[in-house]
């Protein structure tokens, strides 16, 4: 008799939220959004409502979702400062019009309007764990689409090996840009194989609403098995290239922030342990998991790369 071992992400049918409750919740959230006055909770300015998005239960986080207020008021966004209370300042970042150029080693370079992406990409909701390199974490219901769906439109050339993400740089709105010595714009990147992984997600919303600017609205990237700084926010350009990019943090402190930055509790940051993480919004501290618990999806991406600095 065959023995079937369920995978970590699987849940039983009985645990799935009934469809009428999902859509009922969305309706209630939509009505409630206008009542929320705090900047962290307000809908992203100028952004129309998201199209309906069903939750993809394949990526069950195994932990409670963080409170929306925590996730939208405790933010890392270096263009607005190195502290966490940037949500109010970030409201000044216009969310429309917004375009994302996808260019470089692709058959058909394109410039996409954000609303065209919302209309044409396969939008879904995924609840991902987010692990910051600073040893804190949260769980966020993101709305978005797989990066692979976007890449399928532009058709990467066979010679493309890396994907580079560039964040908007808006002087006058982002006070951090006054520090001209930093290597703006914020650049991050990954390999084409990592980009094609099913977990690689372009995020356009959170908690059923348009992604607020402080979280990287109107569009950001997220690879949940990597430390959060790898996820570019407010993306304006995606470039496919055959050259490994040197990211923003890699230029500043290469010994602390590398290209791969996969989560590993056994490899400490030079200045602190990565063995555990503080759960934002609670007093809880929990053990950190290899690849942030997503090893079954991504571990094989790193076969044969033992000589690379995969964990920093």
């Amino acid at each position: 008799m065959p023995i079937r071992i369920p995978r970590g992400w699987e849940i039983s049918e009985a645990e799935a939220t009934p469809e009428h409750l999902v859509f009922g919740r969305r309706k209630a959230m939509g009505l409630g959004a206008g009542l929320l006055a705090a900047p962290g909770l307000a809908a992203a300015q100028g952004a129309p409502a998201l199209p309906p998005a069903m939750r993809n239960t394949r990526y069950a986080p195994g932990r409670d979702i963080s409170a929306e207020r925590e996730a939208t008021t405790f933010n890392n966004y270096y263009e607005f400062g190195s502290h966490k209370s940037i949500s109010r300042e970030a409201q000044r970042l216009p969310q429309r019009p917004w375009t994302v150029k996808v260019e470089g080693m692709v058959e058909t370079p394109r410039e996409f309007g954000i609303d065209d992406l919302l209309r044409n990409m396969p939008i879904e909701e995924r609840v991902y764990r987010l692990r910051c390199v600073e040893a804190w974490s949260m769980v966020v219901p993101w709305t978005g689409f797989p990066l692979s769906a976007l890449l399928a439109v532009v058709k990467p050339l066979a010679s493309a090996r890396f994907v580079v993400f560039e964040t908007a740089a808006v002087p006058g709105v982002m006070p951090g840009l006054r520090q001209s010595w930093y290597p703006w714009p914020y650049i991050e990147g990954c390999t084409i194989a990592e980009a094609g992984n099913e977990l690689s997600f372009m995020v356009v919303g959170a908690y059923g609403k348009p992604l607020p600017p402080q979280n990287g609205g109107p569009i950001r990237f997220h690879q949940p098995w990597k430390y959060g700084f790898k996820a570019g926010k407010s993306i304006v350009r995606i470039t496919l290239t055959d050259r490994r990019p040197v990211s923003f943090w890699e230029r500043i402190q290469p010994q602390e922030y590398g290209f791969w930055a996969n989560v590993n509790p056994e490899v400490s940051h030079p200045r602190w342990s990565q063995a555990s993480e503080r759960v934002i919004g609670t007093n809880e501290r929990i053990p950190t998991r290899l690849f942030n618990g997503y090893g079954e999806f991504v571990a094989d991406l790193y076969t044969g790369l033992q000589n690379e600095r995969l964990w920093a």
Partner: protein
Amino acid sequence: MILRTIALLFFSLAAVMGFALGWGYELGAALFRVNPGALNALQAGIQRYLFPEVWDGAFVPILAMPAWGLPVLLGLVFLAISLARAGRG
């Protein structure tokens, strides 16, 4: 005499920095070039554990001034002390 010599050394350093780095080269850029991690840690420490406004309002304007401005300021301080002491004597 020693204070005036120190002041003169700072003025000389300012001139060297101006010629070597360029007269518009910012102090922050010069410090970043020497040790990018230290400047970054200073910013994080001030913004996270003190007040963000202190960094944006006080440190950034100083760091945004030309790099040669700092040794000129220090030179002026030493020169002022020297003149004050001479006045008392």
